[in-house]
């Protein structure tokens, strides 16, 4: 008998005007000691299955049909199902521990809720659990508070917490999405070990095919609430049958080799038109401003760049303490190239981007754009002329567009500000063309940002950046918030724009396979300093710096 058997499960969210079916007729099973990978893009219903098994569906969601059996028994009839039989590991380790209690308090409380133990026994058990999840010196660390642990360590504590009640089944909902790659690999190994050594069934919910390929025994692929394909991991990865799985796998950037474009194999079951290829009908975008000098040498030169943040304030300057976000950074960006800037969270890569974009002023060093030192430009007119040539695309498409403005006003704002058009009708024609170029169509201008999906919003963001006719584009993790198939489309669009408009791009990412596909040269940052800067192929094939080597070896691959 299977540990968990889900039969014909349907979950509905009735709303005012219609009923949204989040999960449609899904049948799944998990055995003891097995890891089932549940993949799909956002909105596919994969997390909903997890919450339905836990009995934690948010109102007004309800199980409209089918059954969930644990060891053949209806899950809803099992007393203390949560904890005793099924545990959960959440995505964000920063928020899934209570900051006011020590790790010991949280663990022993959970142990004593589920098992008859004295306080001392529970404490010993907690220490041994921490030890098992790979926390060194568990005896002392258990007395600490969650904020004293790093992100990866905290996720280990969360896993220990899930093990407290000796569950049969663990649902891990995107357990490594919030973590850096180097930590991700360790956490996945840990989950793998636990499943084998303890005979626990695991449902690993994720959007990341690389994670699945490394960890899961079997894979179930979800699309729009329905299960489209299920099978052994190797079979799904190497010989997918369903067209959706094929398109999903094709869109995953490969770390092993460089492609010209991502295959635009987009699965459209309902016959919706595929996203159009870019057409540059108008030459407004290609016309140059009169203030651009076509010099030689690198477009951007960064020399001795440094920035520090105040960590402790004091009245006397000598008592203040600072942390170096970026320290003594030197690099060039050549005309027409795509320079990748990679590093883990906290490495200072976004701070560099913001300094070049002019949002933050550097504390030390200089940034030279097209031969002009940006800090030494006196007249505001000249500074604006320079700024116009540098534009930025942001990470989070949900916060980078003003929710109270129409799309056409968002795209028109840089045109107005730089007085790039003479009349209102010319502006609206340019805005229409820009929206056409990024593949949204001029009609999109009348809508508000919330009417668009994440990928479409990122296209609006690109249209806004192009509206000043920039020469240099800074992309700060432009696709990290997007699904892989959308990511492929956006990256293709950026490549096309770069070719058509002769753009120079600074491409910031933590995702090495994406960087390999996009960039001509790559700079690796760690703790605010540059580790290595090399041609992309050279860097990936023969990394010189030990840190780069480590990053590349941890790169998830299919």
């Amino acid at each position, binding site marked *: 008998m299977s540990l968990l058997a889900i039969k014909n499960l349907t979950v509905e969210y009735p709303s*005012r005007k219609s009923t949204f079916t989040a999960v449609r007729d899904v049948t799944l099973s998990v055995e003891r000691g097995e890891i089932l990978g549940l993949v799909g893009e956002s909105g596919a219903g994969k997390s909903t299955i997890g919450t339905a098994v836990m009995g934690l569906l948010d109102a007004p969601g309800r199980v409209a049909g089918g059954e969930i059996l644990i060891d053949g028994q209806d899950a809803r009839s099992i007393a203390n199902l949560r904890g005793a039989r099924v545990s959960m590991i959440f995505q964000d380790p920063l928020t899934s521990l209570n900051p006011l209690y020590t790790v010991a308090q949280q663990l022993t409380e959970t142990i004593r809720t589920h098992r008859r133990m004295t306080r001392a026994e529970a404490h010993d058990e907690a220490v041994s659990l921490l030890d098992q999840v790979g926390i060194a010196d568990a005896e002392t660390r258990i007395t600490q508070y969650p904020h004293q642990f790093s992100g990866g360590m905290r996720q280990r504590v969360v896993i220990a917490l899930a093990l407290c009640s000796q569950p049969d089944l663990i649902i891990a909902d995107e357990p490594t999405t919030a973590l850096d790659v180097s930590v991700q690999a360790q956490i996945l190994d840990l989950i793998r070990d636990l499943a084998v050594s303890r005979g626990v069934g695991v449902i690993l919910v994720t959007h990341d095919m690389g994670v699945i390929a490394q960890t899961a025994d079997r894979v179930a692929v979800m699309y729009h609430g329905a299960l489209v394909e299920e099978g052994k991991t190797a079979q799904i990865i190497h010989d997918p049958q369903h067209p959706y799985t094929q398109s999903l796998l094709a869109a995953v950037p490969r770390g092993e080799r460089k492609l010209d474009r991502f295959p635009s194999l987009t699965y459209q079951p309902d016959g919706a038109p595929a996203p159009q290829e870019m057409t540059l009908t108008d030459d407004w975008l290609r016309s140059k401003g009169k203030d651009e000098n076509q010099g030689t040498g690198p477009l951007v030169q960064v020399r001795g760049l440094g920035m520090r943040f105040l960590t402790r304030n004091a009245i006397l300057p000598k008592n203040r303490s600072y942390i170096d976000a970026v320290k003594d950074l030197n690099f060039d960006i050549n005309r027409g190239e795509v320079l990748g800037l990679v590093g883990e969270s906290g490495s200072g890569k976004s701070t560099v981007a*913001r300094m070049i*974009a*002019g*949002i933050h002023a550097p504390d030390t060093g200089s940034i030279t754009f097209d031969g002009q030192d940006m800090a030494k430009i006196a007249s505001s007119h000249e500074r*604006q002329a320079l*700024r*116009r040539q*540098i*534009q*930025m695309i*942001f*990470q*989070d498409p949900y*916060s*980078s*567009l*003003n*929710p*109270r*403005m129409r799309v056409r006003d968002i795209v028109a*704002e*840089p045109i107005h*500000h*730089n007085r790039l058009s003479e009349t209102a009708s010319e502006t609206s024609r340019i805005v229409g063309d820009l929206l056409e170029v990024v593949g949204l169509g001029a009609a999109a201008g009348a809508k508000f940002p919330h009417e668009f999906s994440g990928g479409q919003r990122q296209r609006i*963001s690109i249209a*806004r950046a192009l509206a*000043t006719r920039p020469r240099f584009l800074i992309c700060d993790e432009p696709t990290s918030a997007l699904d892989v198939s959308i990511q492929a489309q956006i990256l293709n669009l950026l490549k096309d724009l770069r070719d058509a408009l002769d753009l120079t791009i600074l491409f910031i990412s933590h995702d090495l396979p994406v960087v390999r596909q996009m960039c001509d040269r790559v700079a690796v940052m760690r703790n605010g300093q540059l580790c290595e800067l090399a041609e992309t192929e050279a860097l990936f094939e023969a990394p010189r710096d030990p840190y780069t080597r480590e990053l590349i070896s941890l790169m998830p691959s299919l």
Partner: protein
Amino acid sequence: MNPERSPNLIMRLLDSDAGYKFRSSPVTVVAGLVFVLMIGAALLAPVIAPFDPFDKGSIDLMNSLLPPAWNSGGDPAFLLGTDNQGRDLFSTILYGTRTSVFVGAVSVSLAVVAGLFLGLLAGYFGGLVDAIIMRIVDIQMTFPAIMVALLIDGVTRSFLSRDQHDELAVFVIILAMALSIWPQVARTVRASAMVEKSREYVMAAQVIGRGPWLIMARHILPNVMGPVLVIATINLGVAILGEATLSFLGLGIPAGEPSLGTLIRIGNDFIFSGERWMLIYPGLTLALLVLSVNLLGDWLRDVLDPKSR
């Protein structure tokens, strides 16, 4: 504009999310109706009211202290009875509501304008600007509205003649209420502005080269208006109550002019001599008005809260 939507503006409003939340809560619907009815009656007081309480010629002392029309001894001409000066209570309540709503609306508007401006400055610039503005807010918050009113009242009394003072009384109350409300608005706006400032659309505007004033006006202001509207409605109730309190204490609106506060003050003197209607009806009006405003404020908060969507 949009062909598939129903053409009628009212139908469209009722069909929107806000309209749906409004329709699906009977309490809100009743509060809305009461509010519209009372505001309408107050605005149309000169048309609806059977008597003009400011017209000394129409007041007859012989008619004083008549009970409501349905009681024995009541006169059908005076629906809710009369007060000690012989004024028709129904008419004075209508005019009184007018004064109260005027004081509430103007003082809240002033407070919102001041609070928005200073709150945006504090939230956007931070640092020293923030420190100075927020310390002023903290100091202001230590003074209760009544004390501020007493202070202003005392100061104005010292250099104005009695007639001038009576004329300006309404504005003393408005100023006092506005001064006691603006710190709340400023705090809310500052907190929201700090959140909005850290969003990437503000950064995008900075990259375009927009200056701080335009960013505040075009990008941050529209996004902090939601909480401000909620604070404003709830404080409309506070301001109306504040006016009533101050008038009841004899500050501000002179006894000769009807406001809900002055009416309650007069009624209070007669509560033990049996003429309870003089206290009950103005009091009930005030309670209903404030309650309906607060309930509408709750609804507005639900509608505008992005988390509840």
